[in-house]
């Protein structure tokens, strides 16, 4: 397994993900380093880091990856087919190119009517 680079559309530099590391985890871990070296590093917004809040949403334009569990409130099945994912839940398996696609601030909320449903 090797490290993979992540390029973000319209941003200079790359995020270098170690094997098994998510885009957000790599970005946060190396932020200090890029500050010291003065090298540009793309930024993705970070919220919960756990696939729940949707602020780190991106669209993968090119490359292979593995996805961890993420909220369907932010990435529907259709979204998935179009390459939308949450960057905190993406483990690259090749070099990746992505575009920022943060969730709109207001979207229909989850219904409170099915809370007793047996799932």
């Amino acid at each position, binding site marked *: 397994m090797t490290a993979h680079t992540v390029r973000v559309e319209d941003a200079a530099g790359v995020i270098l993900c170690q094997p098994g590391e998510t885009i957000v985890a790599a970005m946060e871990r190396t932020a200090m380093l890029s500050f010291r070296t003065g090298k540009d590093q793309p930024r993705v917004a970070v919220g919960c880091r756990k696939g729940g*809040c949707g602020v780190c949403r991106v669209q993968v334009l090119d490359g292979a990856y593995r996805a961890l569990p993420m909220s369907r409130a932010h990435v529907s099945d259709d979204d998935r087919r179009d390459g939308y994912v949450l960057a905190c839940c993406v483990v690259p398996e090749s070099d990746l190119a992505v575009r920022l696609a943060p969730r709109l601030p207001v979207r229909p909320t989850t219904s409170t009517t099915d809370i007793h449903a047996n799932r």
Partner: protein
Amino acid sequence: MAVTGVLRPGFIQLRVLDMEAAVTHYVDRLGLNTVTTGPDGRVYLKAWDEFDHHSVILRKADNAGLDVMAFKVASEADLDTFAKRITAWGLAVDHVPEGEQPGLGRRIGCVLPSGHRIELYATIALSEKHPPIKNPDVWPEEPRGMKATRFDHALLYGPDIDKNLKFFQEALDFSLAEKIELPDGLLAIWLTCSNKAHDIAFVKHAEPGKFHHAAFFLETWMDIGHAADLMTRYNISIDIGPTRHGITRGQTIYFFDPSGNRNEVFAGGYMYYPDNPTRVWDENELGKGIFYYEKQLNERFLTVVT
């Protein structure tokens, strides 16, 4: 005034994406005890210092967030009275029969103007592993992980919080302990039904029904430090802290469960009595109100919810 009517937060039901990861987080790290798993897969938990059957319910779902927060009331008669008062106030009341959750009696429920579901109940079984009652030791088994003593409060995000405020004051006899008042209106309210500085709080937010955090009480500032050590050791996603709130004066860490639901460990906080004035924060000192040492909000506080 003695604490009557609505006594305290009773339980919270959260949606989680990965049950195994959630149980590791809430049981091994936060220190809650497992009570039981229901036939529908919901997992029931409680803190070591709580007498009642359960206080946290985890439900596996494909998205994160809050299903319901429930409050315990003093008696079955109170439950009937509150059903009438809620209806008279103008919200639709529904009924959940006894046994929908193990150990729990009948509940009444309603959806708040902010889009959140709350429920009330009077009857719940004494837990098997309750705190000792006769010649009580300080704990039955030594607390684990962050040593959370109880589910303490929740902060919820949604619209129409002025209506929520009136509802909690007029229909449920809560008091407004603290508020943030901006030139264009209320931004946030901290409501109490007890001697705690808050039992539930709301922040104004465009999208209804959103969840900001569920807070768990720790005994001391030292326990907050120990919790912080555990968070780094086990690579738990931290939002901010350890720090302190100006509002409620609690010592705190915000962090996230494995599904992105925000948790808080909370110690201290002042005692509230119903004759206390409402403490007020304005736009000039708002940062200090939320995070007393940083003196400013991190952006995540206002934008990241599930």
